[in-house]
């Protein structure tokens, strides 16, 4: 990361002016708040943090507006004072998108959190950007709807954060990514104006402002509310586990399902190492839900996975990649040193995958599939989907693995800390491409990361025209500096491999600081259009400067 410059700001005046806008209780310049808002969940920042280093970048102030009027006033003030604005949601981003590398005013949107309306005739809701994801989904469920967006960060992310990053939920195969569900946005632009982008997409001439602002990660404005499409809550859920010989057979089976026009809510294929890790920390034997065979009660509550137990105690049956790695190490009586030694010989562990793991385990690759929705259609679609999978060589393992996945589906994100505590680091790289290039992408990125780290993968967001791959890697190095160097090398080699194959460098985590250097490789000359949108919506360059590979504008 390059050292960013923070220009001197008259903090007393800034404090006074912000107080005049939001009152004394919703602005802070206290050190503890500035430290808190100095980072998001980008793993690279945790490496130094772990060693007790103070944050490198802090905002000058944090404000918690409650109304779009206050946001406008803060933006106008920032324009006048020429200080940056960093929109902030739940802080769960994993790419450093909310890090205030040039200081400035962090606008925390979480006090704008009303679900204002749900229109049953239009199937559209109007929701403020700061609403927490889990509460949003619970509020909708109470009214008989779902947004269908279930990222593993759902407890610590906001609707606005999803929109800003083009997030995906675990059931995206049915409901789409967040950008597929937006009917309109309310945005405060860098001109200090409120714009609304609503209107039926196909009826409006000109560029789609909604699609230009979704995914802009706070570089074009602050999203303050959105009109989002909702679906009736599912009447039926069907979940199953399958196994298949290898990744090639598994991806082919998924492709056939999707291209036949079937839309499971979720379909996940784990590669051999991920499958092996799964079996070591297995919940395969978890009992099936006893309420109704194969059918859950309608409107199932969101199951919390490990949340109540986090971070003090680990649940009895560990799930999640990190836990599984630790379980593997600890299951063999290894301690910290031994785990580090194993991660330090990543190429050996990776090699194991193609040979020993597969042969000994004889498990092939594990697949989880779930369908949900209106009762009649879901039943028919499930039958068609399962028979398509079987005809493609997948072996039915019954319902238990499917329900077990559903129960633990949020657990993984909360289990990074033990790994970091033990001196290693872990991160995930989510790339996507067309079916034709998918195995190339899998092998290239796996080889590129495998030089440095233990790497495993699953395929978890499928479309008729392609699929995403979610790589998880773990590695270790003697100290923070060496860890950062290793971390950067993994990302450089992994993303360059993805770009060479013709994949996108991010399917749903976004760009932030992490992938900013690779944006030109991703978009090439088309970056000119992004730059033009930037100069239109944020002419002074006050919004989230230094991110996403945009040219930096000097804040004179």
């Amino acid at each position, binding site marked *: 990361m390059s050292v960013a410059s923070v220009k001197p700001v008259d903090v007393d005046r800034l404090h006074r002016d912000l107080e005049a806008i939001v009152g004394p209780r919703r602005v802070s310049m206290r050190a503890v708040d500035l430290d808190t808002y100095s980072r998001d969940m980008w793993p690279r920042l945790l490496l130094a943090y772990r060693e007790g280093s103070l944050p490198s970048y802090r905002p000058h102030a944090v404000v918690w507006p409650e109304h779009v009027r206050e946001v406008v006033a803060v933006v106008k003030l920032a324009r006048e004072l020429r200080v940056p604005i960093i929109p902030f949601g739940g802080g769960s981003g994993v790419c450093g998108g909310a890090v205030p590398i040039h200081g400035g005013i962090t606008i925390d949107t979480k006090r704008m959190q009303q679900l204002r309306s749900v229109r049953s005739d239009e199937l559209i809701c109007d929701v403020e950007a700061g609403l927490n994801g889990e509460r949003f989904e619970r509020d909708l469920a109470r009214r008989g709807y779902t947004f269908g967006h279930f990222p593993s960060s759902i407890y610590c992310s906001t609707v606005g954060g999803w929109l800003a990053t083009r997030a995906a939920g675990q059931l995206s195969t049915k409901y789409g990514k967040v950008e597929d569900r937006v009917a309109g946005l309310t945005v405060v632009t860098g001109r200090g104006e409120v714009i609304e982008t609503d209107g039926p997409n196909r009826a409006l001439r000109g560029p789609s402002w909604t699609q230009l602002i979704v995914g802009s990660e706070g570089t074009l404005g602050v999203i303050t509310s959105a009109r989002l499409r909702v679906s009736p809550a599912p009447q039926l859920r069907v979940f199953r586990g399958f196994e298949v010989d290898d990744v090639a057979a598994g991806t082919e089976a998924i492709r056939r399902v999707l291209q036949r026009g079937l839309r499971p809510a979720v379909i996940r294929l784990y590669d051999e190492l991920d499958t092996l890790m799964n079996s070591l920390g297995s919940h395969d034997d978890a009992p099936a839900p006893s309420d109704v065979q194969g059918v859950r009660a309608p409107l199932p509550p969101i199951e919390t996975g490990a949340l109540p137990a986090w971070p003090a105690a680990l649940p009895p049956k560990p799930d999640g990649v990190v836990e599984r790695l630790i379980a593997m190490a600890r299951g063999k009586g290894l301690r910290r040193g031994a785990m580090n030694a194993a991660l330090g010989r990543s190429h050996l562990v990776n090699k194991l995958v193609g040979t020993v793991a597969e042969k000994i385990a004889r498990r092939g690759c594990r697949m989880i599939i779930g369908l949900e929705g209106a009762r009649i259609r879901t039943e028919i679609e499930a039958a068609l989907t399962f028979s398509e999978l079987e005809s493609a060589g997948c072996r039915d393992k019954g319902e238990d693995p499917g329900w077990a996945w559903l129960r633990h589906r949020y657990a993984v994100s909360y289990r990074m800390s033990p790994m970091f505590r033990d001196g290693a680091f872990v991160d995930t790289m989510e790339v996507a491409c*067309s079916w034709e290039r998918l195995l190339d992408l899998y092998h290239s990125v796996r080889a590129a990361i495998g030089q440095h780290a233990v790497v495993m993968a699953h395929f978890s967001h499928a479309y*008729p*025209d392609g699929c995403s791959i979610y790589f998880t890697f773990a590695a270790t190095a003697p100290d923070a500096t060496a860890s950062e160097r290793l971390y950067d090398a993994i990302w450089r080699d992994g993303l360059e491999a993805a770009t060479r194959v013709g994949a996108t460098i991010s399917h749903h985590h976004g760009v932030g600081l992490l992938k900013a250097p690779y944006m030109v490789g991703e*978009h090439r000359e088309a970056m000119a*259009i992004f730059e033009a949108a930037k100069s239109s919506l944020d002419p002074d360059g006050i919004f989230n400067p230094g991110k996403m590979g945009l040219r930096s504008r000097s804040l004179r």
Partner: protein
Amino acid sequence: MKLHDELVTAVGEAYVEAIDERTWRVRPGSAAEVAEVIRRAGEHKAAVHPIGAMGRLPRLAPARSRVLISTRRLDQVLQLDEMSLLVHAQAGLTGLELERILGPRGLSIGDYPPVVLTSSLGGIIAVRTPGKSSARHGFFEDAVVGVSAVLADGRTVHTRVAPRRATGPDLSRALCGSEGTIGFITSAVLRIHQKPEARLVAAYILPSVDAAISAVYLALREEAAPSGLRIYDHAEAAQHFDGLTLPANHALLCAGTAGPTDLAACDRDLITSAVVAEGGSPTDDELADLWWRRLHAGEPTPGPVPSLQVMATPGKLRAVYHAVLTQTRAVGAATRAHISRFDADGAVMFFTIQRGGVTDEDAVKLAERVVQTAGGWLLGTRAVKLDAYLNALRDALDPDRIMNPGTLA
């Protein structure tokens, strides 16, 4: 060098045609030639106007040199990826020409109305109209995975092909619908589909247009994904189906479903139950057959081209329909309508507003006002409030305003 000579250098003499002393039509044969033409036009600050398969001229820039770029020779399929169901086709190929290439391979561009597909792909993508949608495949733009285009400075951009991404704004959506003002689209990567295993059609009679609309949304809520839906009001049904007399105020609903046989049947049954729940009943399927043949097999549709196309969201369809009907009839017009092109955004109403057998222009103008008050969307609506942002976006990419300058301004 004179602009004429530069154009000849760019595309060859055979493909440059002088229309008047400051207007030329060129027919480049490749994306690289398009880039060359635009770069040279830009140096002369000449306006660049795209022309698609229909040869329709946009509003030409007055008082300056003009280069009309025809996409007619950009008519090749560049790549067909049958494994990913993606096709990369040049902008001058029409939808129907592409369909003829895909058909023998068991593939299809999708259940879009053929009238939409008569345009060149570049035109279909660059110009947004509400009719470019299908109940089964959604808005045509959603099928666009990537776009290649030439910017005002002659640079060529290719948006990267991926099923979805999280690497900033969807830059192809700046080009789609922008009518040649942001970039000149030279090719696009589109999602295509396998031909469905089964196709079914059915026709129903319902006690009113409102009941028919309710039935449609009841079925869509049960997640039916029909390949086509159309509601005819009483007068329209009589006009379109010779001799068909529905009971007063009743409506005709035609529905098509497609997909794996079980799903196509399931969707048809879901529609039938929804119709019954709304007090309707199935009728002679021959009506639906005829509707589908007219739509997709080129059988002529009787009657004039509708006088007015109106888009409305699901919650506003009834209000807009009744407002137009009541108020135009109050001034003596004979008004009838069918409703079609349903998707998640809503549907399109096609009104025919006549007096003495010819279009009643005054009543049409009245209807346009009525539509806006009732919350509908007229063809060609712009987000006028965002004009300042669009202008700034154009200024950044095209400071001399050479790209289709009279459009979206």
